[in-house]
């Protein structure tokens, strides 16, 4: 998704006032647009405003010194990020998810973007308690005051499509209760339709058909995320899959206190990434956290054929006892049999040191093309090599290595500049998962033997013998 969004962003730019509703701690005051036409307009205008900022920047650069160019670009990134944030608050649902995805890429995204968009991990338009209570009535047939022994009326975190409250059950368990905004599922559906309509109106966009497939894939995933009953089942599945990983904690679902718009999970106590890093953890602690993360992601990937699609920092908790808590179960994607067959073929070919080109072309949906741009094929090889770099490395791999991350950033940048983003839709999630995991590991400055973990999990799942 990042490539798609960046492509949209980079195709558009101006020097306008920053959006008003960005006061610290405040949500957007702009009403939630529901009609398709109005949403379409909002999405279109957001894209146009962001694009306008970059166009003006390019014009100004012609007359600027190098120093001025750098300052100008930095300002432009900030303006664009602010606009995207404003739009994200306005369109909520899908665009917020996209903005969150951007924020999770850490140094892969211009610094200013990350600073502004990072706020989205824990800031969403708030719901007051009277509205939340009504959501409970409709979903579970009773008010939170009756369902729980105690319930905090103030949210302690924002989920992208709702908010999270602390509570205690009648049998004494501390829980985190996610409550969804009313109408969000239909809002996301409306947003994604608008996105598709925008794509349809952009005939100049290379690979438009493939872009549309990716948006459809994103749409299916996002709509799935709005049903907390699905998320509860996923949480159970993830808990079962990771049950024997002593360093990973998956909160238990409380089914009697969960429904379509309300999800109650055990409350985990620990630090989010920034707070964890602020404690200046030892290298050993960083490595342990990194190993837990890679072990959990790999176990799900090979053992459950499931991609953890949103490894953003907001979705993990670093517990004081050194374990890693997994917090979010909305963004998971299971491979189809056909997709998995391709993944297995890729793993086996990589293990055997065989040529990967034919498989890469299938992944990029270029296998039926009579002529493939050699630079495109090379980009696929380079990107894959970048991903495999940590699993090819003997011993602990230093994910904190800036040069490694920078190479990945350069690759991504080149791919976007050349618009070589065509891919099978499932790779929307895989790219996000792989890149997001590496960004998180980089921020942790973790050193992990990825090769060992990868091989153990592949063998355990029978992917390779």
């Amino acid at each position, binding site marked *: 998704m990042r490539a798609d969004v960046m492509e949209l962003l980079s195709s558009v730019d101006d020097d306008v006032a920053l959006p008003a509703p960005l006061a610290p*701690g*405040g*949500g957007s*005051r702009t*009403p*939630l647009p*529901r009609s398709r036409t109005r949403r379409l307009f909002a999405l279109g205008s957001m894209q146009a405003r962001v694009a306008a900022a970059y166009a003006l920047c390019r014009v100004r650069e012609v007359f600027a010194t190098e120093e001025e160019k750098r300052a100008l670009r930095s300002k432009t990134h900030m303006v664009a990020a602010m606009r995207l944030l404003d739009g994200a608050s306005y369109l909520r649902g899908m665009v917020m998810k996209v903005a969150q995805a951007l924020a999770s890429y850490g140094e892969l995204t211009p610094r200013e973007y990350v600073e502004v968009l990072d706020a989205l991990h*824990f*800031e969403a338009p*708030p*719901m*007051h*308690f*009277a*509205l939340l209570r*009504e*959501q409970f009535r*409709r979903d579970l047939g009773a008010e939170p005051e009756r369902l729980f022994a105690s319930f905090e*009326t*103030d*949210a*302690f*975190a*924002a989920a992208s499509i709702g*908010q999270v409250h602390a509570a205690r059950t009648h049998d004494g368990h501390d829980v985190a209760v996610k409550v969804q*905004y*009313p*109408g969000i599922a*239909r809002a996301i559906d409306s947003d994604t339709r608008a996105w598709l309509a925008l794509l349809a109106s952009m005939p100049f966009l290379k690979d438009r058909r493939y872009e549309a497939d990716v948006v459809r894939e994103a749409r299916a995933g996002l709509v799935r995320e709005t049903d907390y009953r699905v998320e509860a089942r996923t949480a159970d599945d993830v808990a079962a899959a990771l049950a024997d990983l002593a360093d990973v904690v998956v909160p238990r679902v409380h089914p009697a206190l969960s429904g379509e718009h309300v999800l109650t999970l055990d409350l985990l106590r620990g630090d989010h990434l920034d707070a964890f890093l602020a404690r200046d953890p030892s290298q050993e602690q960083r490595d342990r956290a990194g190993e837990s993360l890679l072990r959990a992601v790999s176990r799900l990937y090979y053992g459950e054929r499931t991609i953890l699609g949103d490894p953003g920092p907001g979705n993990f908790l670093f517990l004081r006892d050194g374990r890693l808590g997994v917090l979010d179960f909305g963004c998971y994607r299971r491979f189809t049999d056909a997709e998995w067959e391709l993944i297995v073929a890729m793993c086996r070919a990589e293990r055997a040191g065989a040529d990967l080109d034919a498989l890469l072309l299938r992944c990029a949906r270029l296998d039926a093309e009579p002529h493939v741009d050699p630079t495109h094929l090379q980009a696929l090889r380079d990107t894959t090599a970048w991903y495999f770099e940590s699993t090819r490395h003997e011993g602990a791999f230093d994910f904190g290595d800036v040069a490694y991350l920078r190479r990945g950033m350069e690759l991504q940048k080149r791919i976007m500049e050349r618009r070589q983003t065509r891919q099978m839709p499932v790779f929307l999630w895989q790219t996000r998962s792989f890149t997001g995991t590496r960004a998180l590991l980089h921020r942790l400055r973790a050193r992990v033997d990825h090769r060992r973990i990868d091989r153990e999990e592949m063998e355990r799942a029978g992917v390779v013998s």
Partner: protein
Amino acid sequence: MRITAAAREENRLRILREAQRLFASQPYGEVTTRALAAASGVAAGTLFNYFASKEALAAELLDAAVQQELAGLRPRARGDESLAEDLFALVLSAIRALEPLRGAVGAVLATALGPYTSGGDDPASRLRQRVLEAVRTTVAAHGVPDADDPITGHLFWTLFLGVLAFWATDDSPAQEDTLVLLDQSMRLFASSLPADPGAMEVRDAR
């Protein structure tokens, strides 16, 4: 034959009871005054001695339902509510009370209830006064000056009718769109008041 005041009141209540039952069980448009009179055991013409029209009868029911619901409301019950939240709760209570009469609301809005309803002793005017009194109490409880300002009342009443009209025909799942519209309307209203004490600032202690 002369009828005593007690017997007249008994008839009126019986008509209201039967109307409540019929409006809840049949589409409003299919309930005729003849059927209402028959169910209440009065002659067709006699019904009009009690209620000027079917809509007036429905408005009486709406007023009674809302009266009962609003009586139990206390603004700032928890102590940390925003004005928008309390107003949201107020209107939501009224809507919940009107749920059995949802089918009648649209018709009453089109006739007896309207932005210009005021002053008289008819049920629609009583409903307006009752709702606006509850709003004044709520607004005053939040320390907003000029809670009696007629513009404030008129603005609220207009929004209230708009939300009711939307709700009466809302076909979204569990009428969730009404919740969103109501939430936004109350935020808009609260933000329009002078010295709004954080009406837009939904508490969010993250």
